């Protein structure tokens, strides 16, 4: 290393930007999370205590856990399945484009679309929602998709997220799948593997690191999930999630201390996933 201050000059813009927009806000948030609603009295861990014990928060944590498991599992596994199956289809490009299309819609837009799909009118009145129209036509009672707690409404919201993100998982996994040498799959077939065994013992291990990256990316997203819930139910009927709760505490109840504490909790929860992602990424770079 050369001595002198020259290199700091080159680093300054980046450090300044990171410091002002990332490091300072983080530290500030951590500090005010130990203060009261108006940030004028020190309350110790009271905000954290409330964050982990208040009823709405517990519901939000539970829902985030449901999102975490269902959303991640479905997007990644369906994305993988589509990547492998569509590789054998002649109209692959069109099919993939259609499945990827929801990514181009904002979550607010997606929320509005799916609100129409889920619309519920009491039994006996005309159903204007697509799903209930279908249910009615099949001769069943209409379902309050966004009202029935805790499973139907939460899963209905998660479905919207899955609809948006599966295409993303598929595209990344498909790119990796196309990188598999065809001879390796053929070698496995000649070795005596049926298609499932080829998938299980050759394809999946080969895609392991990509699957890990996609999974952690989905986990990071799902921990922060906000817009879909905000637009469709705003947390009503026990569909609250942590990020939405944070916004409410911040801008509705003006409780800066509690909102900051929730922000810190979310931040800490996301760190492990980010670390795994970065490690994977570095390992991949090292191979190159």
């Amino acid at each position: 290393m050369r001595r002198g201050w020259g290199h700091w000059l080159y680093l300054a813009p980046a450090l300044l930007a990171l410091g002002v927009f990332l490091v300072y806000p983080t530290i500030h948030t951590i500090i005010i999370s130990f203060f009261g609603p108006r940030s004028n009295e020190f309350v110790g861990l009271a905000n954290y205590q409330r964050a982990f014990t208040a009823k709405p928060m517990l519901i939000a944590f539970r829902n985030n856990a449901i999102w975490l498991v269902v959303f991640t599992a479905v997007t990644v596994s369906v994305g993988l399945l589509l990547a492998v199956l569509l590789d054998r289809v002649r109209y692959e490009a069109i099919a993939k484009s259609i499945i990827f299309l929801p990514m181009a819609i904002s979550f607010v837009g997606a929320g509005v679309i799916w609100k129409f799909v889920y619309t519920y009118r009491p039994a006996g009145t005309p159903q204007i929602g697509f799903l209930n129209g279908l249910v009615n036509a099949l001769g069943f009672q209409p379902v309050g998709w966004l009202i029935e707690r805790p499973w139907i409404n939460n899963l209905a919201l998660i479905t919207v997220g899955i609809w948006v993100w599966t295409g993303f998982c598929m595209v990344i996994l498909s790119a990796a799948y196309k990188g598999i040498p065809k001879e390796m799959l053929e070698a496995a077939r000649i070795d005596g593997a049926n298609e499932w065994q080829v998938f299980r013992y050759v394809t999946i291990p080969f895609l392991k690191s990509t699957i890990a990256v996609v999974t952690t990316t989905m986990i990071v997203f799902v921990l922060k999930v906000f817009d879909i819930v905000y637009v469709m139910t705003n947390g009503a009927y026990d569909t609250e999630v942590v990020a939405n709760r944070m916004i409410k505490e911040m801008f509705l109840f003006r409780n800066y201390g509690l909102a900051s504490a929730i922000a810190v909790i979310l931040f800490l929860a996301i760190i492990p996933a980010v670390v795994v992602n970065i490690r994977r990424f570095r390992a991949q770079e090292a191979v190159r």
Partner: protein
Amino acid sequence: MAEVVIKEVTKKFGDFVAVNSIDLRVEDREFVVLVGPSGCGKTTTLRMVAGLEEVTAGEIYIGDRLVNNVPPKDRDIAMVFQNYALYPHMNVYNNMAFGLRLRKFPKKEIDRRVREAAELLGISDKLKSKPKELSGGQRQRVALGRAIVRSPKVFLFDEPLSNLDAKLRVQMRAELQKLHHELRTTTIYVTHDQVEAMTLGERVAVMKDGLLQQYDDPQRIYDHPVNAFVAGFIGSPAMNFLPAELAAHDSKVYVSSPGFKLLLPQERATRLKGYLGREVLFGIRPENLKALEMLPGCDPRAETVLEAQVRVREPLGDELIIYAETGGAELVARLDPRVRVEIGQPIKLVAEMEFSHIFDKETGETIV
């Protein structure tokens, strides 16, 4: 162990005919090499035997069994690929054991076979390594091992040595030959390298444009090629092809061109009656051209001597290759290294006409 019969097999990709009605019979325990330039259909043929490509028309038998509609896993074959196609996430042991595990062999038997094969291939100390830790030669040994442990009816090789460097290729070539002597498994081996074809094949099938040109033992293909393509493809440096005319004088037949006039031996001449006065291709291998100065008893005015201008000389130590020109045509000669030649100087060469070939100019078919 089994024979492989390929019966009038055709493969089309859309309108393109990759393999055109090929007939090939590989005897039990035989080592057959499919050779030809890229795009000749040799790999496609092999892949059809493996079951990786569907057969458009015709029949393929392994043993007595028609396998057209049998998936690869049930054909009891093993294949070695050019790029090895090892499973990168498994170590060497598991790479070799994979096929046996899928076939539900008992653990002990798997272990015995894997260790035996590793011993045979000299990779016993690498069993715990991952493929990426191995050199190209070692990887190809693992790929061989993976084929051997299964003791399949047929080995299929798809240019297995092409990714190795020249020295290793020669070494592996010899090892493959040894291996075949020990195992005696029916083998079909695809290559574009005529040296591999000559050295490994008990019989060689030369292909071009989806058509089988000649199927015979290597020496016969070398000595008696059926057409100019086979003659030019097998042998290095390649056979010389010189446009010439067949001329008759006093019941003798000559091959003549602006650069030379060479007398054909009598027994060859009789078979050329119909071609007298016509244009033909005169073929002679580089080793059948000798420097006159090394043949003390030979008359410089003999009717098998031609003169050429030396353009390039390549001394290889044990032999001297010269590229020369005569009457506008280029020719290559493989000479004794003691011959003194200079670039730009003329050299007198004696053609061993009893080893020459005459091809039809239009069809390329061998006349004699």
